């Protein structure tokens, strides 16, 4: 007749953050490669041409790394002092870098010695960049000026003295040869036009500006300074669009994903956050070991490269499709497709008589024992299965089933030292989990009742019982603290919600929810004591 119904293993909702498309995408990177540089990594810049080498500016050197190399393929060491802002030209042939000694140097990527030295600044140059027509260089310096230089004859074209503090960031337009934006510690962003002698647009960021970024369309500009990331609309004359405050320390670097859909910001708080550029919500978050100073994404998001204050360069490469597939199917190899379709694609002929084969039901070991009412064996095999598969819910479901059958006490009784300590180990491991507490707490009570007479005979079991007691005490303290916090929150809610006639529903809603959660976890612990 009806077949045996196997024990139902409940599926618990996954706690923690929800898996979104973004999480899947941004988690799909390999373990990072760490390279130690000589000092804090202040700038990383990718060559715009294949094979997309990248220049890493750290201390007095600029190292060039290949896309998959762990050793620098080239290094520029002819700096007298700390180098800043090594950047490629759009054809990938030339590299420009500022220096603490106020000289701007231009290198050929294949050579070693500087091709040109631009002298004129009086203080350290932190910002250098090529303009889009490739023959000019724009620099920004701690002497509050920014200048335009001509590459062929190494002369200064123009000087802008509008900022009133250090200029620490800037970017040139990729579409217009004359436009560039600077960000300064005087809290402003300025858009300059080389055709006129002064800035065109000034935007007030409100904090010392650390990084500035232009959208590929160049209609929007993003600035980072202090804990804020702000987005400005250039087409509306520098109107602020969004202000984001998701970091709790200064944001140091900004970067766009290759398709322009995601914005990444790095901060001294050791996080890199990924924003959706349509609604500017944080969709993902990377944690790093030290404060992040510089950040770059390889074309097509093939790798994320992050430079930190402790001089470590962390490179994360994207997993190849085969590798990412491997992760999801890490279990043993299944039989091939051919095995499953074997004989299935045979079409019966007209007079053939179909004999249906009864589907054999497979029962797990504990279900087989449950079917035969071998309750102790069922519990044993459930303990094994739960431990082996790291799925405590299996064991808990079997304990619950035994409880429903009214035979849990019999199943728990009559165990030797080894079996009992295994059982106690499982219970102490999982009892404080609020999903399992309603089942495991009565079971623990039963164990204490059953084995009360033999306490003191086995040091192993005694140790575990003491541990259990300790655990319960901790959990009670924890729940008490939670209740304290809840009380405080309730006071806050009550004072913040304005008194209205029919608003009792909304306030009671928060109460009801919160109380429900804690009560369900708190109650079993109290009973256990």
């Amino acid at each position, binding site marked *: 007749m009806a077949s045996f*119904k196997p024990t139902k293993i409940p599926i618990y909702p996954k706690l923690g953050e929800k898996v979104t*498309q973004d999480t899947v995408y941004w988690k799909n990177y390999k373990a990072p490669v760490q390279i130690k540089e000589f000092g804090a990594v202040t700038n990383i810049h990718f060559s715009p041409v294949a094979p997309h080498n990248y220049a890493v500016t750290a201390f007095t050197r600029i190292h060039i790394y290949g896309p998959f190399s762990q050793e620098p393929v080239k290094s520029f060491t002819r700096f007298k002092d700390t180098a800043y802002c090594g950047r490629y030209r759009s054809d990938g042939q030339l590299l420009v870098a500022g220096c603490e000694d106020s000289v701007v140097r231009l290198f050929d990527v294949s050579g070693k010695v500087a091709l040109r030295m631009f002298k004129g600044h009086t203080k350290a140059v932190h910002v250098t960049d090529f303009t889009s027509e490739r023959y000019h260089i724009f620099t920004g310096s701690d002497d509050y000026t920014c200048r335009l230089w001509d590459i062929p004859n190494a002369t200064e074209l123009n000087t802008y003295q509008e900022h009133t503090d250090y200029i620490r960031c800037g970017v040139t337009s990729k579409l217009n040869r004359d436009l560039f934006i600077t960000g300064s510690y005087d809290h402003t962003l300025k858009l300059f036009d080389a055709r006129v002698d002064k800035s065109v647009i000034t935007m007030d960021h409100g904090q010392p500006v650390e990084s500035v970024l232009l959208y590929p369309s160049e209609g929007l500009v993003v600035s980072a300074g202090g804990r804020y990331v702000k987005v400005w609309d250039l087409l509306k004359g520098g109107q602020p669009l969004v202000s984001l405050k998701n970091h709790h320390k200064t944001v140091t670097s900004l970067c766009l994903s290759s398709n322009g859909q995601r914005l990444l910001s790095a901060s001294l708080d050791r996080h890199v956050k990924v924003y959706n550029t349509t609604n500017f919500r944080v969709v993902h978050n990377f944690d790093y070991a030290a404060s992040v100073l510089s950040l770059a994404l390889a074309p097509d998001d093939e790798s994320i490269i992050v430079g930190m204050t402790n001089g470590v360069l962390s490179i994360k490469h994207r997993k190849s499709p085969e590798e990412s597939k491997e992760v999801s199917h890490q279990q043993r190899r299944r039989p091939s497709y051919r095995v499953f379709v074997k004989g299935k694609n045979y079409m019966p002929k007209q007079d053939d008589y179909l004999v249906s084969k009864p589907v054999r039901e497979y029962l797990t070991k504990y279900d087989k024992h449950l079917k035969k009412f071998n309750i102790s064996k069922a519990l044993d095999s459930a303990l094994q299965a739960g431990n082996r598969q790291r799925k405590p819910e299996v064991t808990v479901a079997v304990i619950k089933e035994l409880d429903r059958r009214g035979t849990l006490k019999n199943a728990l009784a009559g165990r030797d030292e080894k079996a009992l300590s295994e059982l106690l180990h499982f219970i102490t491991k999982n009892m404080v989990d609020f999903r399992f507490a309603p089942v495991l707490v009565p079971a623990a009570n039963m164990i204490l009742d059953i084995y009360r007479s033999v306490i003191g005979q086995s040091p192993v079991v005694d140790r575990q019982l003491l541990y259990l007691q300790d655990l319960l005490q901790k959990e009670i303290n924890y729940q008490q603290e939670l209740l304290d916090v809840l009380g405080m929150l309730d006071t806050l809610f009550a004072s913040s919600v304005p008194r209205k006639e029919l608003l009792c529903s909304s306030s009671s*809603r928060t109460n009801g929810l919160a109380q429900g959660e804690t009560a369900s976890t708190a109650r079993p612990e109290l009973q256990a004591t």
Partner: protein
Amino acid sequence: MVEHGDIRVVHRGGIARYCRFLCERGIFCCCRFLLCGSGYEVKVFSTSTEECIHDLRAHTDLVTGVLLRPSNHLQAYSCSTDGTVRLWDYTDVCNRLMFAMMCVFAEFQLVAVHLPQSGDQLVEAREFSAVLSDVSSNPAATSFGRGGEYIASAKGLQLEVYFFKKQKPYRFFLKEDNKKGGKNTFTCLACHPKDDCIATGHEDGKIRLWRNFNHKKEYTYTTLHWHHSAVSSLCFTPEGTNLLSGGIESVLVQWRYNQESQRDFLPRLGAAITHIAVSPDGALFCTSHSDNKITIIRSSIQVSAVIQGLVKGDSVRTDLMVDPRSKALVLNGKPGHLQFYSLQRDKLLYNLDIVQQEYIHQSGLEQFEVVKAAFDAYGNWLATVEERKQKPTELELNLKLWAFDEQTQSFMLNTTISAPHEARITAMCFCHSTDSQTTVLVSVSKDGHFKAWQLAPATHTEGPSWSCDFVGAYHSLVPECCCFSADGSLLAVSFQEVVTVWSPASWELLTTLSQPPGAIRNLCFGQLTCSKYLLGTTDKNLLCCWNLLTCSLEWSTSMDVSLLLSDPFSENMAAFCCQAGCTDLFVFKPSEPRPLFSHKAVCLGKVTRAVFAPREKMLESCEETSQWLNHSQLYFVTQYMVNTQHNELVISDSVAMTPFSVLLGKRSQQEGQEAASSLLAERTQLPQGSAAVRELLQTPAHVLPSTSFLCSMFVESLLISKQIKRKEKKAAQYTTTSLWLNNTLCPKLSRQKPSLYCPTPILHD
């Protein structure tokens, strides 16, 4: 010998039985047919197709036993509490009424009746001789021995064997309790057909095989033990090679005779086995179960067929519901299941497993029970609540949401919410909104909150699932019932004396209505044109009607309404009022102060559940009192049974197309009326008949069936049926079918056993 007074039928022979439900006990006639007593009739089932082939009707009370005639295997005896034993030719449904047994006694006695050899249809048996006095009322505890040489009967702790030749009874006694604390009380017995051996079943699950019982002292017995609870039925196969036993474990055990260590089992038969029968050739077994089911089993211990009536559960804890898709009546069935019962076809469609756990047949074990269920308006979603109360403090609750799957045509589990509330859920309803975009379920619990559950859209990893959308409370009062308005724009939740009206769109409390004193018991929105009215009943005997446009009380009246429900297909509302042990039915429209229809004393006892079921075909009755049944039928459950309430007279007034259909239609209706009606029905029959005559004469002959076919029916339609006259007036014009659902629910009834009493020897005429 014969004591006059209360008349009861006492069962005769080995397979005496006692029948209450749709099908309780069966016997095999041969391999092809299975006979079983069912209510007032004996049903003949085919063992291969599970279909009911014949209904043998003549008894006027419950059939208590069926027995094959040993001399002619095409005939069977049946006995009933009406005091008759009838002999049937079950193959051609011929009733040869044999004799009335006028025998019977204050104590249960076993009597021998000499069958009068007479050709008469009705014979009164007058020759009795008492065989054994003081026998058990349980027919399974009496059996004929080998070749009818002796008869064995067990009662309490005593086994009595009476040898017909020696005319001498032997009595054997057991101790009350054995050393291990098992109870030795006899529950049933069976005699070996070829050997001098009696198998007895006991309260503690033991089976004893008695031998040598024709000696007072030297009797022996061997004990077999497998069952953990009382053995409820025992049966030997015709050759005596196997012994079958069954009990509450719902496992059929086959013991080899003389090799008792070899056993075969057929587990998981669904419900406790109440009776076992074997076909005369031994090829088929059949077990009848406590949930109104007969299982036919091949001798190789494989189930070959299942005959299932309306599943008799412990109680109807869910409301009666109608599945909007299949129009089936939905209520508790097997433990942990919901049954879908087609009212049109009077057939069980399927059982839906809600709990999805192995059912452990063990007395005293708390099981999960389905306590609430609700359908949404289109039948796409089913919500169920199951609960298990182990200790007073611990209540396990699960709320499950089932989605209808078009491919498999059944409900698939979508979401399980464990512990949705902290206390018992008292009411649950779906939002009946016209747009199926947002489906909202509201559950109301004793923990002082009501929760709204909403279908969350599918994410990329998993399909759509349900989650809590809102938790509402009102001044820490305990909510009792909830109701959505017809368009789904308002939700009314009653908190003791206060009705709160919420907007499901924003979850704002719109208004509160109250009419103290008395907590609200039922809450119901009006339907269709009356949807602006909200009706509530209080436990202080008040029926109130609020107008939601003005938020004021429209009218109220003082009546003790035990149940109020609205017909979703019309504006009508039905109110059941319990008064002095009887229930009155009122049907009214919320907009009119005058009831459309009222019926005093619809049934005995309190009506606990009721539902309006849609009719397959709309009736067009213009009679004012019956108009309310045009769209739907009203079904209700009292404490004792499921009743259906619909006006059968209205059907016969409907226009008949041809005299043929008048005649045949009339005929089939009469057959359909099991509890067949009333003086009133009889009166209307004559004008009906004359209309039929008129039309018969006017219709051209070539469109009529042959005269020989029509003649008997035509004549019959003019006769006043004898059978109808005898019916009690109580059945009145409204009762048509009464499905006996439940007697375990009402200990009162089973104590009184009203059906076992016949007030007068009615077959004296």
